[in-house]
């Protein structure tokens, strides 16, 4: 296989993985940009989305699109519940962002273990029979699901930006992100806006969870990918939703090229070296605003 062909295939692989990361990172970055803390429970939102879709597809024999929507709904509901239980009490007390971070980690561990206890730690496959699984261009193979994931991530970015720019809720969200106290003085219902943010993040997380579950496997601790998502968000610039998407693509490509041309064992080493480099050289990331606290 010619060297160039090899490179093209690796780029395709990288973009495929990047699409998965990107889609997961968008919802995560939304929460960061509005509330200023890392919502590590985001991984568990994706896990819930994947499992709800799995059960809808296998037990209720629903068509794929319905399962995806069910997964998104499940994740969104979970997100809103977590917001009510773990964050709004802290919000009302004007707690520092570190408290939110700790609360997030706690909820994350809780949901993971709840999943292990109730669902069992076995790996499950999503029952999906696509008419075409892989598309071949000569020697290059592209997964059909990967194309779908990439396409949906881009749609997700545009849709989210549109909501933020053109809808009332979107404007409220932006106001809260800028200054929540001032926004409340302007008559914006912080509590309702908060739930709306988590709803949106949950929907996106659910979608990414289902697609990840279809591409790989579904299991209760699949949310542990959130560390990588955090890296994507930092690369792209915490505080920028489209930045997080770009960060996701970038991470996917870098990981693949390192695995493909250097060694698979160095992949994670490289990722975190890159993270440190970004934090030292350009902490705002590619497209973000300068923020001191990245927790």
């Amino acid at each position, binding site marked *: *296989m010619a060297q160039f062909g*090899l490179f093209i*295939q*690796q780029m395709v*692989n*990288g973009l*495929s*993985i990047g699409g998965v990361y990107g889609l997961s990172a968008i919802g995560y970055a939304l929460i960061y940009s509005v509330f200023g803390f890392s919502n590590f429970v985001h991984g568990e939102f994706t896990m819930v989305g994947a499992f709800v879709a799995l059960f809808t597809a296998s037990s209720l024999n629903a068509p794929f699109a319905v399962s995806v929507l069910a997964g998104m709904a499940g994740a969104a509901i979970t997100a809103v519940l977590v917001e009510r239980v773990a964050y709004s009490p802290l919000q009302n007390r004007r707690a520092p962002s570190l408290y939110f971070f700790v609360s997030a980690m706690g909820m994350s561990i809780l949901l993971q273990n709840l999943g*292990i206890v109730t669902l*069992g*730690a*076995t*790996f499950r*496959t999503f029952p999906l029979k696509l008419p075409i*699984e*892989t598309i*071949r261009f000569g*020697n290059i*193979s592209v*997964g059909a699901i990967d194309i779908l994931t990439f396409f949906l991530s881009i749609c997700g970015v545009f849709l989210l930006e549109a909501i933020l720019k053109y809808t009332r809720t979107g404007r409220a969200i932006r106001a809260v992100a800028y200054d929540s106290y001032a926004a409340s003085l302007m008559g914006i219902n912080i509590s309702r806006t908060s739930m709306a943010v988590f709803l949106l993040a949950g929907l996106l997380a659910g979608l990414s969870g289902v697609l990840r579950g279809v591409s*790989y*496997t579904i299991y209760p601790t699949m949310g542990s990918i959130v560390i990588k998502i955090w890296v994507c968000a930092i690369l792209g610039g915490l505080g920028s939703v489209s930045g997080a998407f770009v960060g996701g693509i970038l991470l996917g490509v870098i*990981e*693949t*090229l390192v*695995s*493909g041309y250097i*060694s*698979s*064992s160095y*992949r*994670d080493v490289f990722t975190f070296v890159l993270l440190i480099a970004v934090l030292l050289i350009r902490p705002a990331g590619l497209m973000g605003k300068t923020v001191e606290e990245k927790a």
Partner: protein
Amino acid sequence: MRRMRYLVLTVVVLIMVMALGVPAASKAKEIKIGWSGPLSGDGAAWGQMEQWGVQAAEKEINDAGGVLGRPIKVIFYDDRADKLEVVNSVKRLITRDKVVAVLTHAYSSCCLAVAPLAEQYKVPFVSAMATHPTVTEPTPGSGKPRPNFFRVVLTAVAEGGSLATYVRERGFGKAAVIYDISQDYSLGIRDSFTKKFNSLGGKIVVEESIKGGEEEFRAVLTRIKAANPDVIIFTVYYKEAALLMKQARALGLDQQFAGGNGLESEVLTQLAGPAAEGAYVTTHFSPEDPRPIVQEFRDRFKAEHKIDPDSNAGKAHDALYLVADAIRRAKSDDSKAIRDAIEKTTKLDGVAGTITMNLKTHNPSGSDMPMVILQVKDGALHYVKSVSGE
């Protein structure tokens, strides 16, 4: 009146102390043996099979009157195949539950984690399925095995070796080897496969490492595609192997797949689907083995659990039998006596082979114990043939 109250209190306390003493005395009739393994998490499919195999043996032994006229009781702990957790479980079994022997572990890495405890507490440990050479011999080939560690399964040397022999026999000469750098088991099979394959005139065209727990392998598989092998060897565990096989086929890799017993699980075919079809797996036991002792075990197991036993169940069953047989020959439940008797085991027929313990390695002798070749056909692993374990 006061003195009466004190008298009554003293009598009550005395009765309570005696009551505490009495259950202890009746429990001492049981001979306790410990088991630690993964009942949840990554290795759960195997740990569960091992537990069922041990329970089957426990029931058979107790139904036949137990050992030395006493019933045996196996105490099970779930350690999630976590190297820290297994140390805790084993310590609890020895110090709190006071077991006379410990059956552990399916994972070579966990065996190595608790091997020092076997020597520290001088309790014999028997592993049913760990195959890395250093589990029983800190320096393989030195003739100085760990005094208190034994196994009833052939090591990675036999496994990798028989895999290489079979793959060469089928006409494959250019192998790609995928291994897991985080698992001692995988490194062991990789080494023994490579050595035997090269000695039989084969060539390893490319070697790629992955890390257990990862799901995305297309970068590594693209490199393998470029090296143009005619067979791809998976020395990893079943979850990673299933994803690797799926992604490999999607990338257009049509080569024959083969692997060690890390692949032996129905989870492999469940996760991989048609991608696993035709893959060879070397392992230690097959429920389709026509020998009567195997078929009887299979029937009883299937009646209880509705599915066939696998190598884990078969070997774990034999591990408990090894300990029970040793207790009988030692005529004692003292851990040292049991250890000495295990070392002298000769031609003990198990469902998963005949065990003659090699004094110099604490492994079963390969001339009495076979390896088994399986192949994935129609979505399940099927018995092909038994080969020598030498």
